[in-house]
């Protein structure tokens, strides 16, 4: 039983790391813009596609060792998706800033449909095999089995998250971002170029999403146009669970959702004596989410907004 548990913990960590990485994109955008960026899942989906094209192009050019190819392709994907993110914000969200929160959200939804179908039309609807970036070999560990891909994903996620945290907390631009997410008006009064902070967020968020997408595709060995909408919704749930707007919250939410899903699959039938099957996994996950929000109305690490804090914020 113990090694079974351990094995499940490993699975939970791997999937949780990916959720957490995508959740970061949602949470950063939300923190500053108060916008549910429904298109974020599509940046995640575009990552592996772009990576594949770049790899193919590099191979066609030839002359570089595979490792260099891979690194170049990763960087190209990050930058290109980041630039796309900035463009989407300019075109589809910025004109709507003064119009409440529903209009930008629905515009994001429209963007999501556009991006997903653009790939479906150009590349085709079928899932495509995606080669593993890191050679996949199993390692025995304490009675459990870890694959190198899982280790790679965990390591990459931790490095990216730590890097982002350091960036947001330690650099000048990072402080702009945090200031902008605290108060848009105050920041602009203080001379912070909020638009620049927003652009930066729409560069980093989608870029990270693309990284998560590449990891995801490499882990499962496939990519398909619809992968973003399914995983995106889950990552968004993770961001909410952790407390949307909070970067550590997104990571926590990601790992927690991974754990809940794995628990729902692996233990729910056992715990309930077979009465509740694995098909109730998502019901379980959503129920946990609702329960968490009942007791922590702003997620685990989110700043709870009650009337007390609202009054305090407005009056002082």
């Amino acid at each position, binding site marked *: 039983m113990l090694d079974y548990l351990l094995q499940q913990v490993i699975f939970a960590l791997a999937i949780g790391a990916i959720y957490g990485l995508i959740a970061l994109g949602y949470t950063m955008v*939300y923190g500053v813009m*108060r916008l*549910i960026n429904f298109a974020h899942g599509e940046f995640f989906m575009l990552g592996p596609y772009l990576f594949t094209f770049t790899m193919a192009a590099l191979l066609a050019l030839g002359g570089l060792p595979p490792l260099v190819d891979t690194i170049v392709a990763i960087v190209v994907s990050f930058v290109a998706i980041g630039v796309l993110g900035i463009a989407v914000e300019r*075109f*589809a969200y910025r*004109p*709507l800033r*003064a*119009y409440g*929160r*529903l*209009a930008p959200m*629905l*515009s994001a*939804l*429209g*963007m*999501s*449909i*556009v991006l*997903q*179908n*653009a790939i*479906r*039309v150009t590349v085709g609807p079928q899932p495509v095999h995606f080669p593993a970036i890191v050679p996949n070999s199993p390692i025995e560990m304490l009675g459990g089995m870890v694959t190198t891909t899982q280790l790679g994903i965990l390591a990459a996620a931790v490095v990216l998250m730590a890097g982002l945290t350091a960036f947001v907390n330690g650099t000048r631009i990072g402080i702009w971002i945090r200031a902008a997410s605290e108060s848009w008006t105050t920041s602009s009064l203080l001379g912070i170029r909020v638009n620049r902070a927003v652009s930066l967020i729409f560069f980093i968020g989608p870029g990270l999403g693309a990284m998560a997408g590449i990891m995801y595709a490499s882990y499962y060995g496939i990519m398909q146009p619809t992968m973003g909408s399914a995983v995106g*919704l889950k990552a*968004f*749930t993770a961001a*909410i669970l952790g407390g*949307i707007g909070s970067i550590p919250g997104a990571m926590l939410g990601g790992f927690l959702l991974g754990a809940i899903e794995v628990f729902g699959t692996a233990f729910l039938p056992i715990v309930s004596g077979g009465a509740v*099957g694995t*098909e*109730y996994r*998502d*019901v379980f996950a*959503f*129920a946990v*989410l*609702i329960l968490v*929000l*009942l007791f922590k*109305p*702003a*997620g685990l690490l989110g700043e709870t*907004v009650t*009337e007390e804090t*609202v*009054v305090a914020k407005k009056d002082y």
Partner: protein
Amino acid sequence: MGKSVFLRRTGLIVTLLVCVALLVKVPALPPYYVRVADSILIYIILAVGLNIVVGYAGLLDLGFIAFYAVGAYTYAFLASGQFDIHLPFLIILLIGAGTGALAGILLGFPVLKLRGDYLAIVTLSFGEIIRILINNADDLTNGPQGIAALDRARIFGLPLISPTNFYFLLLILTIVVCGAVYFMERSILGKAWRALREDQDATRGLGINTTGLKLAAFAISAAIGGATGVIFSAFQRFVSPESFTFQESLLVVLIIIIGGVGNIVGIAAGAILLIILPEVLHFAAQYRLLIYGLVLVVVIVLRPNGLIPPAFNLGHVIRKIQALWLSPSNT
């Protein structure tokens, strides 16, 4: 003066034309067009219902389709061989509204404390939970297989068969629901909802129980959703979980926002656009959804307040029509 007479005449003619078109012309179209019109009316009713929560009370509900599902399955349970219960359609319509309202209150309770997007995600979760439960409860709902061969709906002994029959039924329901919601909007209840949307804390400060206010919004809108679900399921004579996905919830929210939040006329325009658009785009084959998405973004960016300006609401239209018919000297 001459100009205003001219305007009034054209106004009269337009009103008459719309009435004639709705009552005579549309039912005479080939059944496909009537069916599209049925779909539009269904989504108008749904959106007008959801608009109470989203537009008036300012609470984003992303799981609205769950109430529609509850209504649809209410009909399927009470008018089919599933449990061999065969109740009359109109009674189920009432029961459907009731079960919808009950589900609305059930959802309402946990979400009342939540603000903004947390509420949105909980309603989304609720919608998904309902769908998955329906899909999993094989003994009750046949799971993914759905319930087929539902009874034909009858009203006072007259069977509803063709899309045209349902068109008239839906048209009546649309008018009743829009009228009721319009009067609700203008009543003190509607004003309290708007206050809630503007500033929840200040509203509480006026001695208004915002919890009850939100519950009322959820219950009324869910009742409308439930009743619509009954008609949908009587129309299709088949229900399955596939009809109640998250995408459907989003579609209803989209209709509200595209048309103009809180504006019944806008909602009608939004429903017409978003239901007809995919039909028109059939020619575009696999480019259909791509174009659909682009149109969405462009429309929202160009008209962020909705297709129909807020001033052009149902009240405005009704006043115009009143001015046309009543005492011509009144101008």
